[in-house]
């Protein structure tokens, strides 16, 4: 057990890398094009849909979080939670990218205008 890498380790790493590559490909295939609006959900319920093309600031949950849209990107600029993970997160702009604030149960999701196949299937 104190020796170096074994054959199965390498197999494990290759398998993980394959899954990573696969999910990246799926992501690139589904998302990426025509992203132009953000959906804000609180507790799973849609609270508002906003266009990414106009610069604006949106108060979510009566001001617990502040989302700023500028240059076609959405960024969480303020949150009242202690961890501030959503604030530190990079701005999102690609389809299906999301910012999530778990303590306040907020999901900000980028969506394209046309209903994607993904939604058509789930609906």
């Amino acid at each position, binding site marked *: 057990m104190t020796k170096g*890498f*074994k054959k199965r380790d390498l197999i494990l790493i290759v398998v*993980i890398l394959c*899954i990573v590559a696969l999910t990246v490909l799926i*992501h690139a295939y589904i998302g990426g094009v025509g992203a132009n609006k953000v959906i804000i959900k609180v507790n799973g319920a849609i609270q508002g849909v906003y266009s990414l093309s106009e610069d604006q600031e949106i108060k979510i949950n009566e001001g617990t979080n502040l989302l700023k849209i500028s240059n076609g990107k959405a960024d969480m600029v303020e949150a009242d939670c202690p961890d501030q993970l959503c604030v530190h*997160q990079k701005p999102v702009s690609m389809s299906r990218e999301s910012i999530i604030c778990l*303590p306040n149960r907020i*999901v900000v999701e980028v969506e394209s205008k046309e209903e994607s196949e993904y939604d058509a299937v789930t609906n």
Partner: protein
Amino acid sequence: MKSRVAYFGIFTSLALIFSYVETLIPVNFGIPGVKLGLANLIIVIALYKMKIEETFLLSIVRVLLSGFIFGNYFSIIYSLAGGLLSLTAMALLKRAGGFSVMGISIAGGVFHNIGQLVVAMLVVETFSVIYYVPVLLLAGMLTGLVIGIVANEMLKRLISIIW
């Protein structure tokens, strides 16, 4: 050995100290939830040095204590889901055999992130977090590798501690 309780106490406090050290490192990769997982180092070592049920107990005790001290209700649920799934994966791989400490630790890192992702999906009731999968897998693999290399070196020097 008769000093099991003492060893268990030392492991618990080490895991807690590592959790604390982790909070001091201002790592921000721009992705929520990605961190080194220093406390996992203790869990990996315990996996090789303790009975499996004791390792599970250690993991739970560590998560609860560090959650109450440094985190909150959410972080406890997350860490518990991640920690237990990760430990289960590591224990199974170890039993299967053929993996080095690094391999076991990589699996632990990856499954830790998968466990947390599943909880995140349940909490926010959305599947969009699934798009973090590639990043989290990669991050889990890299941190697991780092932890595994360190754990391997430590285990080499801890041969005398057996119970």
